[in-house]
């Protein structure tokens, strides 16, 4: 399998009043062509920052990329100019954003928004674009396309809006799709439908996916491989089966344990009642401050990702 996306030594920092904070520190991460890669972590772990770095949408300042390479089809995206990026965004790499409420422009009809993207990115005429927009509505299984295209976002439900955003993401034949928590804020019944749609479109178009989620269960439905991100670093990496069935890193275990599954008497949530420290430690494992099993070495040395069998890697001294 060939690698479509390859990230090396990526360091992204934010400048704040209190100094520079590192929010992303990835030694290496690659996503093969046709693969669905999931990224899981709590809020503030750097998931969305990674997505924005790939698309060069990061607000600079306060953010800045200290070092690193993001190779997409063998070309370093970080070296591209804004003009070149505009040709890549949407056409080669597209993104489904988190919040369907704020992604669409409230003052234009959904039809205007979709046809505009098609006209701009694919050079279609207005009539062609309209026809294509109707096809896209059918693709995402929205009934009565003409009617939906004439509506403003506020007239549609959350699920319908999210489907339109998915249609936009697939509109220009991108080979790489970043989905940033596409089902957040949706009801479970709606979420199930949207997930099935995404899975089906991925299968049909054979697109490569970076799927960002904050829970492993959801990601495991879509992805082949998953990485667990903690404070900007990958702590565990492996196939869904390996990570979900045999989690090895203490942080992954915590994430899994944090999901309430049963009646309160049966689970002990105090085990995970540890919150992240405000500041990053100078040295050592970034998880050490919250880890229940930490030892002396954890505070002194930063663990590197090491192979523990199959395609499974963890960054932990234990």
């Amino acid at each position: 399998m060939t690698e479509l996306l390859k990230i090396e030594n990526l360091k992204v920092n934010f400048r704040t009043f209190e100094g520079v904070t590192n929010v992303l520190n990835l030694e290496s991460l690659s996503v093969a062509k046709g693969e669905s890669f999931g990224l899981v972590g709590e809020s503030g772990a750097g998931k969305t920052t990674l997505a924005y770095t790939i698309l060069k949408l990061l607000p600079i300042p306060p953010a800045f990329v200290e070092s690193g390479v993001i190779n997409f089809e063998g070309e370093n995206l970080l070296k591209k100019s804004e003009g070149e990026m505009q040709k890549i965004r949407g056409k080669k790499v597209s993104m489904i954003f988190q919040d369907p409420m704020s992604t669409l422009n409230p003052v234009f009809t959904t039809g205007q928004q979709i046809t505009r993207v098609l006209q701009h990115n694919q050079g279609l005429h207005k009539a062609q674009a309209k026809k294509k927009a109707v096809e896209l509505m059918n693709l995402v299984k929205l009934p009565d396309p003409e009617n939906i295209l004439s509506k403003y976002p506020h007239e549609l439900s959350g699920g319908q809006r999210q489907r339109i955003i998915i249609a936009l993401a697939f509109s220009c034949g991108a080979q790489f799709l970043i989905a940033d928590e596409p089902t957040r804020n949706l009801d479970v019944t709606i979420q199930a439908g949207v997930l099935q749609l995404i899975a089906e479109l991925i299968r049909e178009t054979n697109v490569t996916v970076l799927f960002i989620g904050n829970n492993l269960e959801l990601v495991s439905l879509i992805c082949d491989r998953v990485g667990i991100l903690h404070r900007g670093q990958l702590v565990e990496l492996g196939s869904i089966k390996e990570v979900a069935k045999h989690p090895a890193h203490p942080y992954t275990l915590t994430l899994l344990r944090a999901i309430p599954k049963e009646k309160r008497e049966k689970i002990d949530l105090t085990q995970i009642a540890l919150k992240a420290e405000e500041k990053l430690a100078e040295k050592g494992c970034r998880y050490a401050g919250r880890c229940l099993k930490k030892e002396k070495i954890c505070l002194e040395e930063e663990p590197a990702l090491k192979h523990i069998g199959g395609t499974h890697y963890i960054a932990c001294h234990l």
Partner: protein
Amino acid sequence: MNETILSVKDLVKYFPVRGGVFTKAQWVKAVDGVNFELEKGRVLGLVGESGCGKTTLVNVLLKLEEPTSGKVFFEGTDLFNTHGQQLRRLRKNIQIVFQDPFWSLNPRWLIRNIIGEPIQVHLKPPLSQLVKMVEDLLELVGLPREAVYQYPHEFSGGQRQRIAIARALALRPKLVVLDEPTSSIDALSQAQILSLLMDLKNKMDLTYILVSHDLRVVHYMADEIAVMYLGKFVEYGDAEAIFQKPAHPYTQALFKSAPSIGAESVNDLFILPGNVPSAINPPSGCRFHTRCPQVMEICSQKEPPLVKIDRDRLAACHLLN
């Protein structure tokens, strides 16, 4: 048997939708005949899709909305027939934690003022005593005492929710409504908030009404569950019984559409066809019949009553009679 803290009788809340010159005014039937009783010290989980009337029901219970008809009794007193001083005293006992701590805390206020406001309104203590009371509350919810002189933006989502909880508990209420308390924070903070809420419940002898669409949260917290669909309860009863064996087709659909680690692929998820129908003209007969996978002829003609189907619960479905 414990004493009943809240009892709701035939509660109805309609919102008017203005008609045009030639059309008649219509009504959105947000809550349409809800009955339940809640015992002291229990946790009631309120489940349903968005638009089913959960929030409206809760707003009526807090007296933020007047009901169209029906009665709500809090410890025997009629909530909507109480005025003046008596109402003020009553309000102290029912508090709410809102869904989104990014919107529910005033960004220009110090934490002291946010948590202290209800105390000031009801107890009017001198400032030094107020500050101490706020500090005690912060400690109760696991925040540092120094936080009194900070602003909301200095806290993370989970910490803000703790502040909102501290405010709700400031007057030592008896009933606390939790409106999706963890839906806007991530899994780890969620676990912490949930365990904090259970701790506080035991410590302060609270009764909760938990509104959530996350079934796992409801399973973790609730003693009894009410499943709502278009303004009505479709299943109501003991939480464990409902989780073990959901009876109503809608409850089953809700449970089967949630992802879990056991599911191998998205195709294992159950998909309920269609959207929630409009609450202005709810479907005839059983309101769920337009989406029900097991629909029968009778369903579109006759509305099933909410009846006892076994020892622990009630359900409204023709299949079960």
